[in-house]
């Protein structure tokens, strides 16, 4: 087993554990953290794929993903804070409707 395959397996594990977190957890902040986990798993796979193929595009893409993820976290947290202020809770099971 080469080191690259190990990285790929780790990235799959990271992605799936993030997905598992998104599916089963109710707290919105936990959901955001889990999404980050998925993103990082994807980043890891990009970089390790680069290593296999010997290119640089995956690394550049990973950098972009990091940037976008930072922005997304800022927006997501803002939304969570707004929902909390408005409704007084932050569990996703309570927010089942888009309207009031």
């Amino acid at each position, binding site marked *: 087993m080469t080191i690259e395959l190990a990285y790929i397996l780790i990235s799959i594990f990271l992605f799936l554990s993030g*997905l598992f977190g*998104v*599916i*089963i*957890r*109710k707290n919105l902040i936990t*959901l955001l953290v889990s999404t980050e986990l998925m993103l990082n798993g994807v980043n890891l796979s990009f970089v390790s794929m680069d290593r296999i193929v010997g290119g640089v595009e995956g690394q550049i893409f990973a950098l972009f993903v990091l940037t976008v993820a930072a922005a997304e976290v800022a927006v997501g947290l803002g939304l969570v804070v707004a929902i909390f202020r408005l409704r007084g809770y932050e569990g*996703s*099971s309570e*927010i*089942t*409707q888009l309207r009031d």
Partner: protein
Amino acid sequence: MEAVLIVLLPLLSFLIVGLFGRRIGDLASAIITVLGSIFAFLLSIPASTKALSSPFSVPLYEFIPLGNYTLRLGLYFDALSSLTASLVCFIATLIFIYSIGYMQNLFGLWTYKFYAYLSFFLFSMLMIVLSDNLLGMFFGWEGVGLASYLLIGYFHQQKYATNSAFEAFVMNRIGDWLYLFGIFVVFYLFGSLNLLDIFGKVNTVDASLLGLAVLLLFGGAVGKSGQFPLHTWLPNAMAGPTPVSALLHSSTMVAAGVYMVARLYPIFESAPQSLKVVAVIGGLTALFASLAATSHTDIKKIIAFSTMSQLGLMFLALGIGDKSSAMFHLTTHAFFKALLFLAAGSIIHAFHHHAHDIYEVGGLKKYMPLTYASFFVGALALAGIFPFSGFWSKDLIIGSAYEASFSLGLFVSFVSFLTAYYIFREGFVMFYGEERHKKHFEEEPQESPSIMLIPMLILAVGSLVVGFFEGWYMSVLGDKKEIHLDVAISSVVIALAGIGIAYLVFVKKVLDPEKLYQSLKPMHTTFKEQFFTEKLYHKILAGGYMKTSKALFTAGDRFIIDGFINLTNFIYFRVVKFLWIKLDVFTVDLFVNGVAKLSFRFGKRASLIQTGFLNNYVAFLFLGLVVLIAIIIYFME
């Protein structure tokens, strides 16, 4: 070219008043109407002088080009047409002015319509008089029919007026129908409708067909001039306002029939057998109408019957070949008949349009001296007393009647005796004797306003002096007639006898009119009912037609046609209901409803997925993604 304006000015005033009458008001409409006729009259004078020296025609418009012949509209001015046009315009102008006073109490109630109709009436009559072909004449012919219908039925809230208008229209329609067929025959014979073309070829065509054409054309004149047997509309036309009656009876409408025969006289002359029919019908009507006039008591109907009788005399004169005296009598008659009607209208106006029977009024001489004078001038002219205009014209007719045969002359003398009697009976009853109106009306009658009196006075002067133009008129129409002294004296004596009898009976009461009425009741009723012709037409012809229609309606329409339709309806309904149940309810509805039910059930199940939980959605998203990727990978290999 200004001659065209004679016809166009009344048309123009009709259009202005008809279209804008509501905006400009009734008085302005009346003034425009009067102006239209005044200018038409003023223009007709130079046209007449020109036409007297040399006849001329004015082409107007190419109506229908037909292969080798084109139907044209145009005007033809010769002595006959231009003088008649002037007469028509003159009398119409006076009557229009009079009508301003007569209709004043109706101003503000859409009276502009009345003036629009009057202008149209004048325009149509001028079309008849001046047209240079039979088609244009027919156009005017129909126009006066329409205008008279509108004007007789002007008081359209009254059932009687609308019925009378309807009767006038139907009777005229019969005449128009004959006239139209006459035109067809003329066109078949001559290949042209132009009067001058026709006159030039009169002797070259088949005489028997020409006789037929003449009879058909005369049928039109019978309808329009209210001659027997199409006469019943004329007395009933008195339902219209009095200026209308005056216009109808003096210069337009009824004069159209006589004028048409005089206009087409070259054709009539070449069919002597048919001309005899003209004479017989004219004579019959003259006697018949004057007998009816002796027994009626309606103020206007007596004068209406008198018109019928005078027109009959004109037709008689035409029938025995004396066209110019007929036309001269038409001219003088227009003056004194308009005068008599206007005087009658003045009396009716004095009683606020409520008095209609001569026995409702009496002793009016004191209250309405000018109306009294006008009426008696008209009556003297009608009776034919020297030197009033009626004397000159009637004398010509009586003279030619005696020339034709002695018995005919006696007949005409008898008619003029009756004429003198009935018109003075009316005059004496209305203006002398006890003041019967005090019983019927509270207010005292007053003399009419001067706007009504002035036209009457002008007409009175006209009735007095027109007779003196006899020699000139005759020479203009190319006919020379001498006054027969014996005929003149005898006819004046006869007329005086008629007046004398009326005076003795109705003023001096030598014989009590009431007793006389009782003893002669059957005769009186016969005369009054016009020998039951009106009853015959109304009850038997019209009523029978109505009954037959009703019977046919019940038998044919209600039973056969409606039965068939209802049966079809019933069968169709049954079939449709059967098909509906079998096809629609059991097949189509089942299918449609089934589909709907299925969709409902499926939708309910499917909607369970929509929980709203974010986690579920993400799980579904992932599942879907996995499936998609699996498919893509599967197909990539």
